[in-house]
């Protein structure tokens, strides 16, 4: 009996000592004020010096105001630091040398990639961001024809919001214009790795250029002076393989959006009528669906795009019309609108097939889904040559379920 109690005691003591030794140093214990919350990262590439410029924008979490307990929403300007080095991690290390807090990527929102970087170093950059466990793949990715540094140093003049937050908000609301759509890093990676689909991403513009350094530079590391300006997200950047191929403007971007079935709740205007009266009807799109069908015609693929649009009338023709808007009139309107949408898509197709020669619509992927064997044998390798010449049939079916609050226009007497 005595032996039993001793072994129990010894076992309990061993367990306690082992467990207590873990309490001595909590290795991963980090307090909030030691973190620098990184909101956005911008990556630029300098072709002459072969250097990567990395820009970080973060919010320091300790706002050292005297009265704690009251919220001070102003003064939440983030800080923007840039550093340049020949590798990505080199630049990051240089940045850590001047920022006195631990980098924390938990609230990371936007990755901005400049034009040169997208053309030259996209693949290594993607692998880095994919493998790093800290950066979440659900954050947005944005491309810019200028420099990423400029975008991040732009403060929106209307409500003093830092660039990272502005970009994220713009990307959330971009579906109301329809000229672009948000792409997360995860979706971008999917588009890169799926065969038969090329990647697209939203493009952002700014009117800020040549940012100055606040307080000089050490060793190419500097704190950027944030300037007031304007940011805009419109259009798309298209890729071929792993390289930037070109830019799509508003109309073409909308066309791509129609074909890919993206959520567009924009306003749409019909073309002016041919009799030169310059009358347009305005519509508000409420839902759009698209279906891509691939057929084999003479052993070559041919594509049918069927688009279903549902919208509501917002402005009717104002001249000499105070009749009821009945189904005949609605049918006319539907046809006008479908022509307008079709022209968008044709513009996008032309750009993608002729200029960029990059299959951003995913025709190859649809082909793979339907004719898996043929794709693997032959078409996968030849798709780059076949794609520019694929005949495409576009059918747009528009439905106008209601005409706003009025069933008849006012007539001015």
């Amino acid at each position, binding site marked *: 009996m005595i032996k039993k109690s001793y*072994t129990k005691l010894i*076992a309990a003591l061993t*367990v306690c000592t*082992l*467990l207590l030794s*873990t309490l001595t140093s909590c*290795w*991963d214990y980090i307090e909030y004020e030691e973190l620098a919350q990184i909101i956005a990262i911008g990556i630029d590439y300098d072709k002459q010096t072969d250097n990567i410029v990395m820009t970080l924008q973060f919010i320091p979490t300790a706002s050292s105001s005297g009265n704690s307990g009251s919220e001070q929403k102003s003064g939440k300007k983030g800080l923007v630091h840039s550093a340049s080095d020949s590798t990505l991690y080199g630049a990051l290390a240089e940045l850590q040398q001047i920022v006195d807090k631990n980098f924390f990527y*938990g609230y990371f929102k936007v990755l901005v990639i400049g034009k040169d970087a997208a053309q030259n170093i996209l693949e290594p950059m993607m692998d880095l961001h994919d493998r790093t*466990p800290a950066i*979440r*793949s*659900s954050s947005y990715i944005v491309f810019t024809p200028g420099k990423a540094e400029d975008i991040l140093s732009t403060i929106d003049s209307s409500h003093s919001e830092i660039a990272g937050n502005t970009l*994220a908000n713009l990307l959330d609301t971009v579906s109301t214009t329809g000229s672009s759509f948000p792409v*997360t890093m*995860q979706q971008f*990676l*999917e588009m890169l*790795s*799926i*065969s038969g689909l090329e990647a697209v991403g939203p493009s952002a513009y700014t009117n800020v250029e040549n940012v100055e350094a606040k307080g000089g530079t050490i060793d190419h590391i500097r704190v950027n002076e944030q300037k007031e300006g304007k940011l805009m997200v419109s259009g798309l950047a298209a890729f071929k393989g792993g390289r930037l191929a070109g830019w799509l403007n508003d109309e073409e971007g909308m066309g791509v959006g129609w074909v890919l079935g993206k959520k567009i709740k924009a306003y749409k205007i019909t073309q002016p009528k041919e009799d030169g009266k310059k009358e347009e009807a305005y519509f508000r799109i409420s839902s759009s669906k698209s279906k891509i069908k691939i057929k084999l015609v003479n052993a070559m693929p041919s594509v049918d795009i069927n688009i279903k649009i549902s919208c509501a009338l917002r402005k009717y023709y104002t001249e000499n019309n105070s009749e009821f808007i009945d189904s005949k009139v609605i049918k006319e309107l539907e046809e006008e609108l479908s022509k307008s949408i079709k022209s968008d898509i044709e513009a996008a197709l032309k750009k993608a097939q002729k200029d960029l020669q990059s299959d951003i619509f995913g025709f190859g*992927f649809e082909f*793979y*889904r*339907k004719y*898996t064997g043929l794709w693997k044998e032959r078409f996968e390798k030849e798709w780059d040559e076949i794609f520019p010449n694929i005949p495409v049939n576009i059918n747009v079916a528009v439905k106008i379920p209601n005409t706003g609050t009025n069933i008849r226009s006012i007539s001015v007497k």
Partner: protein
Amino acid sequence: MPQNVKLTREQIYFFTYLGIIGNIVYTHTWIDNDANRSAWVATFIGILLLIPFVLWTLYLGKFSPESTIFDIIRDSIGKFPSCILCFIFIAINICVAATQLTMFTEMLKVFVLQNTPPIVIIAIMIIIAFIVVNSDITVIGRLVEILTVIALLNYFSSFAFAFPKMINIKYIFPIFDTSLLGVINGIAFTTGTTSELLLILMMIVCNIPEPFKHRNWVISGIFSSAVVFSLAILIIMAMLSPELAKRIAFGGVNSARLITLGSSITGLEIFVIGTYQIIALGKTIMSMYCCWISFKRIFGERKTRLQLALAALVLAIPSILLKSYNSSYFIAVFLGRFIILPFLISVLILASIGIKIMKKKKGCVLK
């Protein structure tokens, strides 16, 4: 130590769940290269293919209701072969548990606790497993029951936020886009890896009341875990695309990182890590229990607590020495492909031969 304590139906059901889902939560990406979009179908069929072996084990358990399979071999063929088999059994259990613990520890280090030394994490898991195995099998059964329910609820409630925005139907169809050979490869690998279930089943067959009559309990457990696991793989494939799903190291956790609901609900992978922690702990408990029972068979019934401590130590040391995720990944794949199932089949064959010998000796039909 009375071994006649019987487990209830729910406990057997959840034991099979936890027995099947072990190393495969990490290594299921091995078959994605061969089976591509039909990985989930291959997993489903692969797990169902375990059923004949399970039935075989339960049928053997009918003949000697108070002892494990190894006891049958000991009673019929002799102590020496059964000792050798026990040693190999212990070695396999050590490998399974060590790879599981190392992979879980490295996953924690990647996502959450970057600076904590892995020895601390492994030590804590082993200590908790020791405390649990110290009580008797009923407590283990009840604990496994409630923890598996919590783990499953955890896992699927995190993924409930993913519907419908992130599931992309296009990634699922067409299903059979690879060759038949690839699918068969996938099925074979899955059956091999999930036959860890038989490791624990051979030990607790004496605790199941009337094993062969209640085979439905185990079979329903296998069926539902096949459904659950292949559903999980299907969801992962639909959220990422199959091309991306091939490359991930940690199954559900990678895909749970993508789930956001607005800007407020992010970071749900913590809960999925909780599920993985419960799975790792459950497998450690089962392996420790198997090692302990085998030690008791080899060394006799004296000083059982000391033998348990020895089992814990023997499990802990390889996990600490094995410091790399990638080597444990490949060791687990190797175990699953070539070692576990052949060993178990040979044990079952020997046990059947043993039954026949015993029947001949006794000259009557054993019920």
